[in-house]
């Protein structure tokens, strides 16, 4: 089971894939447990990928959790390292340079689209709008640490929402 966790951990944070693999194919988790894992992943700081640790834990305890984390990050590390290596090796070539001239602004466009879809779920009333605007202004116009913004927003949420 532990070895399976290693081979299947897979690294792609594709929820449907995880769901099919763990709930439908292997019956290691119930659907409810899977949903709980997502909820925990969203609650904890850092990437949602930590939900894999929860799944690993459910399947085979602490060792499972550790293995799940290792196996979900390993492919990313390998792929990104190779990608980054080639990028930095050929960074000055005209092909890479001009492609990235198109890619960089496109990334900003993509992030803006993500911001809108996040906003659609998170900004539901004047208060949440206010919190978003204040966080934006604090980061753009002051040197405040983003952690204070997160903590402040959490406290505001607890008191007001």
């Amino acid at each position: 089971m532990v070895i399976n966790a290693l081979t299947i951990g897979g690294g792609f944070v594709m929820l449907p894939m995880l769901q099919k693999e763990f709930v439908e194919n292997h019956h290691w988790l119930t659907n409810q447990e899977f949903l709980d894992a997502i909820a925990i992943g969203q609650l904890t700081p850092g990437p949602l990928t930590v939900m894999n640790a929860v799944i690993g834990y459910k399947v085979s305890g602490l060792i499972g959790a550790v293995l799940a984390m290792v196996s979900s990050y390993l492919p990313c590390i390998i792929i990104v390292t190779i990608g980054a290596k080639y990028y930095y090796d050929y960074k000055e070539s005209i092909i890479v340079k001009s492609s990235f001239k198109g890619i960089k602004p496109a990334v900003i466009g993509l992030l803006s689209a993500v911001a809108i879809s996040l906003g659609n779920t998170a900004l539901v009333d004047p208060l949440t709008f206010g919190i978003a605007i204040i966080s934006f202004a604090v980061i753009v116009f002051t040197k405040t640490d983003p952690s204070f913004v997160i903590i402040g927003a959490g406290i505001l949420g607890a008191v007001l929402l």
Partner: protein
Amino acid sequence: MKEDNITVKDIFWKFLKIGSFSFGGVYSMLAFFERELVEKAKWLTHDEFVESVAIGQMTPGPPIVNTGICIGYRLKRIKGALATTAGQSFTGTLLAILLAVFYVKSKGNVLLTSVMKGVGAAVVGLLLSIIFKMSKNTIKDLKAALFALAAFSALAVFKLNPIGLILASGILGLLVYGRRT
């Protein structure tokens, strides 16, 4: 770049801090990368930061995790990549396991829900601030603005695949900018 002065330990601690405070999903991590690594530590320039985000988006797997790995590689090769990964996922993993062990029913907790609502709203603001800062450095002419607008509408309106979009904009970039030089 005074890369030689940066140790793997420095990288780990920085990313540990980033990973510990970035509640509310990975997009808040972008704000931390910018503040901590570009503005405070000056390990990266604005431009290198945008590059890393682009590479993170292009590679399979979670884009922001990949951005961190790419930054780590940029700073200290494979050791840096390992240090960023370990740092940015450590606290979350630990907490997740603890939550799994004690099986906290998060759905029912009203206080927690409102805290996360506040944090969720702040993350939108943080993400917008990053977009604002990136645009100032990257979108300098009409062509770049059109690239951004095209990518935005392709994702927001037509829901096209982000990796395909990045590839397409790279090819377009090659066609538009490659010829002039």
